[in-house]
């Protein structure tokens, strides 16, 4: 294997990792703060992609998708939260899994009802449609954009978490929810804000993924399990955990596909099983006191 090939695969892995990271942030916060498994998180990704696609069709520009997709996912997330998730918090893991499992089916059929049962394409914007030369290799510019966007958002989220009041409330909520609440922090409101932000990021991931992957009803199912794996491997509730987990799974998936094609589908599940056994709380566990 020559170094050029290695570079291309590294970039591919990084690109997929950034998508997974955008998705994992929201899921991780829900699991870390509320101990809640939201299987319907992928649905928001799909909705972001389809709304973005519709907006781009109408406006004739990819950037319209980027503007329309994330808020649509956030709005839907807010409805989910008010209607279902809030009252499911005390319900136990199994019921949460099953209710959000039901939501997946409702989501897929709703999308089929509105946009039909077709694969749609959202072409990359013309500015980014070409290729770029890096270290003697040719690489699609759009994929570099995805990597840059992911890294930039990771930095912004990190700063937001460490430097803002909301960020402090979220960190406190993950560490010890009861204590934070008794100190007068409005954890409920902080959680709602972060939940909506996570949904917006999932919607953003849907739009950003659209030119690379395909848009179709059921695309949520294809991404949900890898995202869950990222969260579990990284350690729920930690931004750095989601980032590290996304890198690990993104690379495992990409290199698995080229190095051991027969077991490529296998790799990420094996990584997860191994991670759960060696570090049941994730690579970077939240500092839970309870």
């Amino acid at each position, binding site marked *: 294997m020559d170094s050029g090939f290695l570079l291309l695969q590294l970039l591919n892995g990084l690109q997929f990792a950034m998508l997974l990271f955008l998705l994992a942030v929201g899921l991780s916060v829900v*699991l870390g703060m509320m*101990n809640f*498994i939201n299987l319907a998180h992928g649905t928001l990704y799909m909705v972001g992609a389809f709304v973005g696609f519709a907006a781009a069709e109408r406006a004739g520009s990819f950037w319209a998708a980027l503007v329309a997709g994330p808020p649509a996912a956030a709005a839907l997330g807010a409805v989910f939260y008010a209607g*279902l998730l809030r009252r499911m918090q005390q*319900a*136990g*893991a*199994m*019921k949460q*899994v*099953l*209710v959000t*499992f*039901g*939501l*997946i*089916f*409702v989501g*897929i*059929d*709703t999308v*089929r*009802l509105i946009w039909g049962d077709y694969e749609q394409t959202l072409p990359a914007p013309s500015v980014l449609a070409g290729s770029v030369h890096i270290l003697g290799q040719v690489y699609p510019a759009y994929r570099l954009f995805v990597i840059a966007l992911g890294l930039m958002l990771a930095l912004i989220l990190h700063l937001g978490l460490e430097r803002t009041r909301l960020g402090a409330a979220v960190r406190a909520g993950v560490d010890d929810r009861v204590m934070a609440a008794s100190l007068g922090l409005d954890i409920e409101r902080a959680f709602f804000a972060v939940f909506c932000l996570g949904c917006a990021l999932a919607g953003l991931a849907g739009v950003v993924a659209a030119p690379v992957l395909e848009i179709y009803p059921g695309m949520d*199912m294809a991404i949900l*399990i890898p995202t*869950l*794996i990222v969260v*579990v491997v990284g350690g729920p509730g930690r931004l750095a955990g989601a980032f590290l987990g996304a890198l690990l799974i993104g690379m495992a998936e990409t290199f698995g596909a080229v190095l051991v094609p*027969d*077991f*490529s*589908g*296998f790799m990420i*599940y*094996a990584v*997860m*099983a191994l991670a*759960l*056994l060696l570090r*049941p709380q994730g690579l970077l566990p939240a500092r839970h006191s309870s």
Partner: protein
Amino acid sequence: MSTGERRQHIVAALLLLAALAAWRFSGYAGEDRLGEIAVWAIFAMSLDLLVGYAGLVSLGHALFFGLGAYAMASLALFLKGSPSLALLAGVATAGLSALAIGAIVVRLAGVFFIMITLAFGQMGWAYFLRARAFGGIGGMSGVRQIDLGRLGLDLANPADFALIAIIAAALVYLLLALITASPFGRMLVALHQNEHRARALGLPVQRYKLAAFALAGALAGFAGGLQAQRTGFVSPELLVWTTSGEVLIMVILGGLGTLVGPVAGAAIWVVLRHILSDMTAYWMMAMGLFFIAVVLFAGGGLMGLARPRAAADDA
């Protein structure tokens, strides 16, 4: 025998009578449904042992269903062996795999147990999706049928298959009723209710959980083998995680930890799916909404409605 158990057995006997009556008087389509329901009922009962009694919520139980089906189909196909031996080999394959995987997964609890069973289930699915020896994504068709000519039965005939499957489901019910009423079964419930206490009393908790996991896996494999017999076809769809989710819903729908509840849950689920998919192309939405309503509003499942004290318990 507690009053709850007596009530379960009465409901089970009534269901068996209803199934036999339906078998006697329904036409071709009804017979096919009955066979389908009986297979899912066995699968759902095996999961109930795990979720309802031992308190282990698995989102990967379809792995053993699929392993049983694939082992049955491939042994009957490749080795030209007797299909009935292949069915037994399928049960053994599923049971032994469950024993091996169980040894790893029972160390985790709660959300992490759900996740690791999901991971193992998906590993199996990803394997069969690619495995050329087993037909890859297209699966394998032309599964050879068990020859019951000596009994005057032909499993290719839905009526005969339904009868055999109903009897098999009744036998699995009896087996599980005996197991759950045995000291072993009582211990499972005890460690589910309070693991710390069970541990303090000196119960080898992990070993009990493992035994339940292996047993549930073997029975799921039996259901899988029967499914391969029924459809004459196996595919990776058998193992995908949504199949695990569906069977979990059947268990919840009927009532956790009641054995007979999951049978009723399977019947309702199968019938409803056929009715809805005949009515509309968007039947998944209707099923999803039904699903959510069941979880939100019928905590103890159907059996919970009939009982004063619901055993419904969250993992």
